[in-house]
């Protein structure tokens, strides 16, 4: 495989130019995204939640979702643990016997609007985006329906319209993005009668949460869930009991999801760059080996042939010489024989004439 110098330089230049088109990729860095400045969040305080489900009703109304099987004021629904579904962006679960002194505790489940969302990192058409205001939005016009976002989300939030044959969508809380962009409150926050949901800038919410813990240390577990989990979320939680008792995972760690795959992704350009070099090298080496092998073979063949020829010739000469000698010997014998032959009739004739004379 030969290539002209000009061509080679041309390819190199093209490759170099292409690298300038991409944005900076950061795999393992010391940088940590703490949210867009002035981005909002919601603080859920389960010491204030009374499990009335008005937030579910508000969300349903504001997002024009399908009506549920049981009405929102049916509190028997809380007897079962539920999760988000294609018809409900948010659900409230009841946890009995965790705070037995004062009664059951409740938890509202919805998208946590992570600072570095796993769904946005996982989506291969960038259908999810972390907006500057803080909401993680979903663009249904590009979604292909691969559902990788549902695999990626550590909180198991996104749901899918499996029933819909033609235009299924991923369904999840939008933080009422259109409403908050207009300065309105999210539907759930507006509906909550006890302000168990507080809506403010995320940095302010952290202050508020810390202040509540400071003022009433006996009321709260000293931890704001979502401050650091999975790199930080916009939805924060305060609880009267350890979070695992209200069904929230405490083992998710603080690494944001995109960092989990950054390592693997950073390997891609290395493979693209180095593999062709490696493989071409292997090819070149094996080709060279082949060439050397065939040359050696040829040399061996020629040498063998020569040797064979020489040996053959020597044998031939020997044979010829021997044949000559034998021929000579044969001639000699023949001559001798002929001479003897010639000599014998003379004597025979002489004897014969003698006998004839006698009669």
């Amino acid at each position, binding site marked *: 495989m030969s290539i002209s110098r000009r061509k080679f330089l041309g390819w190199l230049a093209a490759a170099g130019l292409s690298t300038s088109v991409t944005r900076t990729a950061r795999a393992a860095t010391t940088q940590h995204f703490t949210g867009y400045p002035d981005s909002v969040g919601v603080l859920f305080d389960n010491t*204030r939640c*009374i*499990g*009335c489900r008005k937030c579910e009703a508000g969300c349903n109304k504001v997002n024009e979702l399908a009506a549920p099987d049981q009405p929102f004021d049916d*509190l028997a629904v809380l007897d079962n643990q539920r999760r988000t579904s294609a018809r409900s962006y948010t659900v409230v679960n009841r946890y009995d016997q965790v705070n037995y002194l*004062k*009664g059951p505790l409740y938890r509202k489940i919805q998208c946590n609007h992570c600072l570095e969302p796993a769904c946005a990192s996982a989506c291969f058409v960038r259908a999810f985006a972390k907006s500057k205001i803080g909401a993680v939005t979903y663009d249904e016009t590009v979604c292909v329906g691969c559902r990788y976002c549902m695999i990626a989300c550590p909180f198991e939030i996104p749901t899918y319209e499996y029933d819909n044959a033609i235009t299924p969508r991923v369904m999840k809380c939008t933080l009422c993005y259109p409403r908050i962009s207009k300065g309105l*409150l999210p539907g759930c926050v507006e509906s*909550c*009668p*006890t*302000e168990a949901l*507080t*809506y*403010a*800038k995320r940095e*302010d919410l952290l*202050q*508020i949460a810390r*202040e*509540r813990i400071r*003022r*009433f*240390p*006996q009321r709260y577990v000293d931890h704001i869930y979502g401050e650091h989990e999975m790199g930080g979320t916009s939805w924060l939680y305060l609880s009267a009991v350890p979070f695992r008792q209200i069904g929230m995972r405490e083992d998710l760690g603080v690494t944001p999801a995109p960092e989990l795959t950054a390592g693997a992704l950073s390997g891609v350009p290395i493979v693209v760059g180095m593999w062709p070099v490696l493989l071409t090298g292997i090819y070149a080496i094996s080709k060279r080996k082949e060439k050397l092998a065939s040359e050696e073979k040829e040399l061996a063949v020629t040498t063998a042939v020569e040797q064979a020829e020489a040996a053959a010739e020597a044998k031939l000469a020997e044979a010829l010489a021997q044949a000559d000698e034998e021929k000579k010997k044969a001639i000699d014998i023949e001559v001798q024989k002929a001479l003897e032959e010639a000599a014998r009739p003379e004597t025979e004739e002489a004897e014969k004439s003698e006998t004839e004379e006698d009669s």
Partner: protein
Amino acid sequence: MEKGKSGLRGAGIFVTVAMISILSMGLGVRGVPPSSDDADKVRADMITIDYLKTFGKLERPAVVFLHDKHTAALEKQNKDCTTCHLSENNRLGPKFKRLKDTHKTEVMDIFHTQCIACHRETAANEEKSGPVSCGDCHKEEITIRSSRQPMGMDKSLHYRHAKAHDNKCEKCHHEYNEQTQKLYYQQGKEGTCRYCHGKTTEEKKVSMRLAAHLSCIDCHRKTLEKNQSAGPVDCSGCHELQEQKMIEVVQKVPRIKRNQPDIVFVKKIGSVDEISNPKTQARMKAVPFSHVAHEDYNDSCRVCHHADLNACASCHTLTGSKEGEQIKLEQAMHNLNAEQSCLGCHQINQQEKQCAGCHASLEQRRKRGEETCLTCHMTALNENTGNTSRADEKALAAKLLDSRVAVTASYKDADVPEKVVIDGLMNQYKAVDLPHRKIVHTLAGNIKDNKLANYFHSDVGTICQGCHHNSPLSTQPPKCASCHGRPFDPDQPLRPGLMAAYHSQCMECHKEMGIKKPVATDCSGCHKEK
């Protein structure tokens, strides 16, 4: 034939593949085992046998032993405690079939041979018996939870015990002589066992747990043998919550006589010179303290007298001392986190139902006005210099206590509106007809006999501040809407909006007071729908 064989082989492969796939899926579908939070067994008699810990790391998981189960089973066989417990010093020892933990293999063998032998015997008699194989006792996963509640003497129990022993204190109370290494009784020095017997067993002092079991249970057992009524001998009798509730409580226990004062000053203890010398005297006014009243308020002495039965200030000096572990008098009296401090105990009292309605929403460590100090710190003793006898001091203390106002002051009914119509935020619901006077009367009535409450609510209108907060005392407190408006005001991040202010004010109080009706989620219970 070739085709047939290949067909069969193909079928065999297919079946194997199918089976493996199904099995593997089935394994996956198994899910997670139930968490130990759903333990189906909660018992008070759960003992963990891990005594070999003293000899090094355990090779096998510790064994869960249910004591009451065994005593009940042995009772059925007409066997008693001596089946397992050996006698020592005329008392049954606490260990199983031994008096000492001698050597690792010896102890292990005792458990193994004795336990398993008995189990085998019982099983041979066709009765329900215990495990005989290793893994059935040394279980990896323990599904039984201990529900053992701590147990202790209180006034009522002590009275009943004293009566049973004809007030012979020496039956239980003893002191220890280091030199002679003997126990003896010293009158006037009786105190709780816990003053000497602590959490762990020491050289010559067993732990409280051992001491209690050795003394109490032994005495109960012996008394029961004499066919007299006595306390429990099984675990659940003392440690099971339900059984504890069934222990007879004597309501009016006569005062234990231990030379304690009736009314006294809480003050720095020192000589007359120290008290009168401006350099060493206490600067804060002294606090008159009714010891006799506080004896009534508490179930036992050790709530306050956590180390001995002397005055607090004997260890907790003004500037701290070694005996008091450098905890100064101020901290000993004011620490909000300790039950034995004055304020700490008063704080806990605020958690009572009738107080918590208001007090749960008040920040515990809020800055209080200096006047509140004077509720307790009433007089400077250095005024009374010279030869003040103890008796005189006590009389002064009593006089001061009497002078303290102990009445929750409320406004007259005429000033307290009967009904308040809350109509500021009508959207989906009609106005709320709040039975205002009824609430005020209930709140006042709840605490009218509570001296602690009354001392601090003696200013008129104080209890109104439970709802009408963050404003001066008045018969015309500002409307809620004067301060509470739109929610999530960034300038007032901790102030709820009006709707939440209304709702949480009522709902939190109801929750803390344990009021069942109206239910918080029953909206129309408070305001009718439009």
